[in-house]
């Protein structure tokens, strides 16, 4: 039993830290640290810097830009990018549609799409969830009817992150309405500029615009945009769900938040001293740090098991549900503690545009995003398989109850 990393792995980590420190613009990292939203330009700029150094798609097959990293290296990268407050490469491009095309696409599709996905020349978004489906993804209703050399798509997708920026959307659509739930679903790529595609914003409770509804009204999609076989789209979906593990706990992001909590608590006046002088507050932070350290090791144990897996062994590991549940709880706790620090000063609602007018000289910059972040982070125990679904998975797939 050995918790330590090899000298090579430590060098790899150091290299990443130096790269993140020197090559990623400071203002972008600062926005991440302060929990503020990134603009499309920020995301693209950051993505391209990562890609230029091989850090956007290292997990892809080598021929398409991958780096052939070990599971441990992937883990180190996933942690360090979060810990250093560097935005990830555009997730839907590099973790979702890219790997699916690489695994299930034709040579033609790979050549056509993968390089532009990797460099974020095309911005991709996801068309999976539908209104009313919730955690029951396979009950989707959007249809794609074959008509000559095209599919005609009708229906509605929802919770489409960054749909407002997207050039393309990858979709699960129903190509065989007679088949049972998971069967009869296909994986289809749709150009957002196609006639009949409409994007409607969903504003979330804190006032932000990240997600959208996407409507398809008789949208014609060339058949060559089908990935994999018709009616076998569920294979792609399952493949993606299996891919989600590495980043699921977001330990690095929570570590970064703990640092922020300490820094802010020490800077925020309370009574004769600061918030940090209150032993009761410090104890709450200590409880969080314990949970987080435990989660980090739980994650390392899973990574180590993964590293020893036979190729193709995709059996479920209850650890991924544990990481999702605990990881989301810890992330939410960080936002609660930040809110506790800010206290009454969290009340003003100052979305970026307004705040930049600079006419509220009393307002400390860092306080403004705290309450919106607390509100917004309620989502992390809902999306990607709610914590209730994760407990079902543990109970059924692992405890066999």
């Amino acid at each position, binding site marked *: 039993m050995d918790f330590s990393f090899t000298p090579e792995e430590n060098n790899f980590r150091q290299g990443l830290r130096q790269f993140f420190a020197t090559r990623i613009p400071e203002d972008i990292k600062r926005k991440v640290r302060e929990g503020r939203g990134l603009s499309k330009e920020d995301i693209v700029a950051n993505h391209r810097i990562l890609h230029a150094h091989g850090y956007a798609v290292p997990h892809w097959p080598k021929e398409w830009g991958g780096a052939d990293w070990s599971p441990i290296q992937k883990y180190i990268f996933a942690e360090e990018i979060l810990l250093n407050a560097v935005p990830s490469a555009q997730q839907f491009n590099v973790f979702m549609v890219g790997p699916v095309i690489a695994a299930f696409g034709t040579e033609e599709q790979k050549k056509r799409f993968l390089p532009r996905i990797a460099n974020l020349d095309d911005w991709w978004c996801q068309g999976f*969830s539908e209104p*009313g489906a*919730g*955690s*029951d993804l396979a009950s989707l209703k959007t249809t794609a009817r074959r008509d000559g050399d095209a599919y005609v798509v009708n229906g509605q997708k*929802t*919770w489409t992150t960054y749909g407002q920026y997207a050039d393309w959307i990858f979709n699960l659509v129903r190509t065989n309405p007679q088949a049972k739930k998971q069967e009869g679903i296909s994986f289809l790529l749709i150009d957002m500029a196609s006639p009949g595609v409409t994007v409607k914003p*969903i*504003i*979330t*409770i*804190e*006032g932000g615009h990240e997600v959208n509804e996407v409507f398809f009204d008789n949208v014609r999609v060339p058949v060559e945009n089908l990935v994999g076989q018709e009616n076998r789209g569920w294979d792609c979906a399952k493949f993606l769900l299996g891919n989600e593990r590495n980043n699921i706990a977001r330990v690095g992001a929570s570590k970064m938040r703990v640092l922020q909590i300490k820094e802010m608590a020490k800077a925020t*006046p*309370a*009574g*004769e001293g600061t918030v940090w002088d*209150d032993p*009761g*507050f410090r104890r709450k932070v200590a409880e969080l740090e314990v949970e987080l350290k435990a989660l980090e090791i739980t994650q390392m144990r899973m990574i180590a098991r993964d590293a020893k897996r036979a190729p193709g062994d995709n059996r479920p590991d209850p650890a991924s549900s544990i990481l999702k549940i605990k990881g989301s709880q810890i992330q939410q706790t960080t936002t609660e503690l930040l*809110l*506790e620090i800010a*206290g*009454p*000063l*969290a*009340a*003003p*609602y*100052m979305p970026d545009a*307004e705040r930049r007018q600079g*006419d*509220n000289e*009393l*307002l400390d910059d860092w306080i403004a995003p705290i*309450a*919106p972040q*607390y*509100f917004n982070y*309620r*989502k992390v*125990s*809902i*999306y990607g398989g*709610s*914590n*209730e679904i994760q*407990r079902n998975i543990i109970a059924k797939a692992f405890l066999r109850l």
Partner: protein
Amino acid sequence: MDFDLTDEQRLLKDSVDRLLDGAYGDFAKRDTYQAEPKGHADAMWARYAELGLLGLPFAEADGGFGCGPVETMIVMEAIGRTLAVEPYLSGVILAGGLIARAASAEQKAEIIPKIVEGSMLLSFAWQEPQARYDLFDIATTAKRDEEKWIIDGRKRIVAFGDSAHRLILPARSSGARRDRDGVSLFLVDPKAKGVTINAYQTQDGLRAADVVLDGVRVEARALVGPQGAALPIIEQAVDSTLAALCAEAVGAMEEAHRLTIEYLKTRQQFGVAIGAFQSLQHRAADMLIALEQARSMAMYAAMMANDSDRSAARQAVAMAKVQINKSARLIGQEAIQLHGGIGMTFEYKVGHLFKRLTMIETMFGDTAHHLKLVAG
């Protein structure tokens, strides 16, 4: 021992509910009220006045209707339930309560009738950047200059500070920043020279402002209450306000719970209403427990806030706020979680209840603050 409403109270409740359900029953209307320059609609405020709500807590001798904490509770619960944006808590209960407690007969006669008819809105500008939850932590100074007072300082998150006709604000006429003695109350015209107002919306959809006071000169008669000894009066007014706030929170929690139960009954997943899932049933039951415990403590605060034994009143209100805060967090978070995605959307009411409950948690003391008061 009797927890029922009197017939008069029942009538009041019916008319308040009718007013606010009518105005806010279509939740989208709330946006239009917020979009008014003042952050709320004058016409609605006029209807509060018509119903007599703006005079409820004032003595009849002062021009009010001489009602008690139960009547305030009735109004505040309805405000909480409907997320009404009118400045009732800040203007009538808190700022009005200060005038009622501290002002001279002359000042009362000048101000209270105007509050009651809805033509004058006051706001209590107390929060300073460094003060957190300590009412006595006041860096703003009031220096005597012959017949005038010169006020310098900064106040934060002054409720509806941009539309209030008068600010009532504590400043230090003597003593050091955290002394209990030396605090005096002043009425300040926000249009006076040296006052800068920066207004904004708050997280819960109300309005507030940061106020800078730079050598603001006010007349001697702007002093409200005893010079240098206003703190006990402020604390009493804030305790009554906390009791009202607890009632508002109960209204909001009740509504969040109601919406959640309704959603659990209607939302289908995997072929059944999700309310059929036992784990969600149990969590809905725990929400109800939290709601009823909160309701009990809101009643307790209402009964005790004006107790002549100040330390008993203080203790009771602190206990109530702890319970309210804990229940508010549990119910707010669980309401979102049990709704799932829809609960995260701006256009659905439950998220706004959650945000208001969150802001209430931080108002006049968070859980840690009040727990310290209870624990001694």
